[in-house]
């Protein structure tokens, strides 16, 4: 048995980053295209999470009859769709009206703040402040012990079943395999990068940039080798040892957020709608001159953002196994930090910023003992540092 260490904190950080990225994607779309610094985004996350709760666990909501529980996945889908409908309501009832009045940025900030107050307190009013859970199956966490020994790497996987710690697998990688695997990963990554790289000009739009393709190829190679090339254990007399806890939630959250990112990417880059969205973001008046229906684009942006927010909310509520009316507002600050860090005009920057914020929050809490209440503070220190050095954010321009 070894204890959890930096590697485990990193894994946690990636998951936190993925959840923040779900919220940050929607926020950066609204920020960039609708030009609203949306302080209600955190509470749109809360609303989305409670929408799914209505169908998954209605017995917990005081004014609802207990009409039975829908499976979590179905409830989540319904919740996301309903949140999208609400997004359309926000746009049609509030933000479109203010846009028609040519409201400036300050007014939009205050309006979104008003909406945030209404949404958060609507949840408090209807549900109350108690902690509620989704009805889901229990998830068993598998702990992987990584032991670096003289002759290579030994991995032991253990699970807690019925209170007993059961060893479910033990395998290892000798040094030659590790070195070969890493070399193969670099080679595969570079090969993909070289294959997709082409002469770039002004109009080149990559669906996925070659650098990211290459990096993804490298990671995939390492993972595939790790799963399929499992050899004998290399002894347990370790020099360095660390533990990672993984369960199906981690994998699902990562997969769902990556899928959402990919779908948004395809929409933005390959469809006519996506082009209209990017054009509106650049310059709404010019886009309208070229025949873009800006109202329609804004409506879609709000719907998509509300759906992404709901997705982030449902994943948060599932991951943390409780829902509170403040859950979204607590996420709002890291999400804003991520969006500003990435440079507000780029959803890709927002995702990169979210990963940096998520990692720094969890790794920072691990590295600085007794700092667990300062998770958000760590994110903000990084944000302010970046603002001082590179005010336009790491990815985009203001």
């Amino acid at each position, binding site marked *: 048995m070894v204890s959890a260490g930096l590697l485990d904190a990193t894994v946690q950080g990636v998951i936190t980053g993925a959840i923040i990225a779900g919220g940050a994607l929607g926020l950066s779309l609204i920020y960039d295209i609708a030009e609203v610094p949306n*302080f209600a985004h955190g509470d749109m996350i809360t609303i989305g999470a409670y929408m799914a709760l209505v169908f998954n666990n209605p017995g917990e909501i005081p004014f609802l009859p207990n009409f039975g529980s829908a499976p979590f996945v179905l409830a989540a889908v319904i919740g996301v769709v309903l949140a999208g409908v609400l997004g359309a309501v926000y746009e049609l009832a509030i933000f479109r009206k203010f846009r028609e009045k040519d409201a400036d940025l300050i*007014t939009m900030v205050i*309006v979104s*703040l*008003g909406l945030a107050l209404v949404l958060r*307190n609507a949840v408090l009013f209807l549900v109350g402040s108690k902690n509620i859970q989704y009805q889901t199956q229990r998830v068993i966490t598998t702990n992987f012990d990584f032991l670096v020994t003289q002759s290579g790497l030994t991995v032991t996987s253990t699970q807690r079943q019925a209170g007993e710690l059961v060893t479910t697998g033990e395998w290892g990688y000798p040094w030659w395999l590790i070195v070969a695997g890493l070399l193969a990963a670099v080679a595969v990554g570079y090969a993909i990068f070289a294959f997709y790289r082409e002469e770039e000009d002004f109009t080149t739009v990559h669906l996925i940039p070659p650098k990211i393709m290459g990096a993804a190829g490298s990671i995939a190679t390492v993972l595939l080798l790790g799963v399929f090339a499992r050899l004998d254990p290399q002894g347990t007399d370790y020099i360095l040892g660390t533990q990672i806890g993984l369960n199906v939630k981690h994998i699902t959250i990562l997969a769902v957020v990556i899928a959402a990112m990919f779908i948004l990417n395809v929409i933005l880059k390959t469809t006519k709608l996506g082009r209209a969205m990017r054009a509106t973001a650049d310059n709404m008046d010019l886009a309208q001159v070229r025949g873009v229906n800006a109202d329609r684009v804004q409506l879609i942006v709000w719907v998509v953002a509300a759906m992404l927010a709901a997705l982030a909310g449902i994943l948060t509520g599932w991951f943390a196994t409780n829902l509170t009316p403040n859950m979204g507002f607590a996420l709002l600050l890291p999400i804003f930090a991520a969006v500003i860090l990435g440079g507000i005009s780029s959803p890709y920057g927002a995702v990169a910023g979210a990963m940096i914020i998520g990692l720094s929050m969890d790794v920072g809490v691990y590295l600085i003992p007794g700092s667990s209440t300062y998770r958000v503070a760590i994110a903000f220190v990084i944000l*302010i540092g970046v603002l001082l050095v590179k005010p336009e954010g790491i990815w985009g321009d203001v």
Partner: protein
Amino acid sequence: MAVADFIISLLTFISIYSLFGIGLNLKFGFTGLIDFGHVAYFMIGAYVTVVLTMPAGAAGYSGIGGFALPAIFSALGPLGSLFGWILGVLGGMIAAAIVSLAVGIPTLRLREDYLAITALGIATILTTVVNDEEWLFNGPFGINTVHSPLRDVFPVSVGSFTLNMVVFGALSIAVFAFTGYWLVRVFQRQGRRGKLILGVLVPLIAVWYFVLPTLSGGMVELTRNTLWLFDPTAGPNGGIDYDRFILLVSVAALGGGYWLTERTINSPYGRILRSIREDEDVPRALGKETFQYKLQALMLGSALAGAAGALWAINIGFIAPDQFAATITFYAFTAVIVGGTANNKGVILGTAFFWGIRNGTRFIDVPSQYSIQLAAARLMLIGLVLILILYYRPEGLLGEQDYDIPLPSRNTSGGTDDV
């Protein structure tokens, strides 16, 4: 509780929050800085003042200090202790200004919305720090050994019961007379709608304050409400008690803050602040270092919030981190916007409107298990009012105020192009 006592506590609240709101108005209304972390300076002002003025080694307190400034200066003479307290308040205001300087430097050069977000973040972090670090200011347990200036002087009595009643009663009636005179003046200047609103509201309040208590409590209640400054139960001969004194101090502080901001925004300096709000490029093109001006406005507004915090501490007599939640900032924003952005009178009106409704709803009898619902409904209403006001009357109830030195190309009726 007599109606007079309720009015006194409500007016104290309104004065303190108006001072807080005037600080916000200087930042948001006149200079155009959206400071969502305004409550942080309220908190800093309260804590620093309390720690500077409380005695060292107080029971149940394990934080820094206290530094007992009033006790040190009481050696100077009878008013030395008061002087020490005022020094403490100044210390709180300076601390608030310095922290806002540290917040402003990285954020004020950037887009206006960055300030909103970072300020909200920093305020949240500061509250967390005060809550979690017990060595700093006693953490979540708060401080209950707040120094109350001139506490031992009160209740003040000027002689026999009758003499007290006559002196303070005459002062009370003088205040009513002045209020009445002022209301008549306002009434005459109003348009038709203003006259209608005043004509309905003022008699209603008068009936509530004078007639209803008389019906239930007889002449005793009527006397207590009319001679509101005189408290017959304070001391052997009656007199003016400490709550009424705090009200007077708060009103005086509000008057001072009001005068200071009026002087500031009506000066050429204030004209630069307003031009920064309208279009920052213009003053910059004229050679003004706008960053410095924004920083100074931020610091002055924060110092006023700090002073409000110091008053809050003596009014409540106990401070703890959970009193300084981010919602206080949002209340102040609502008050400023409802009353009239960039209008100091509007801030007072908006604060009175807001806290009148908020504390007035206390009288609605709700079963205790629905108290969360009541609080939530109240906040929903605030959010809704905020949106509706911004849509239908973005300049607020009173609109932007007039200035001694108007900006060029602005009609004197007050423009609305800033909202």
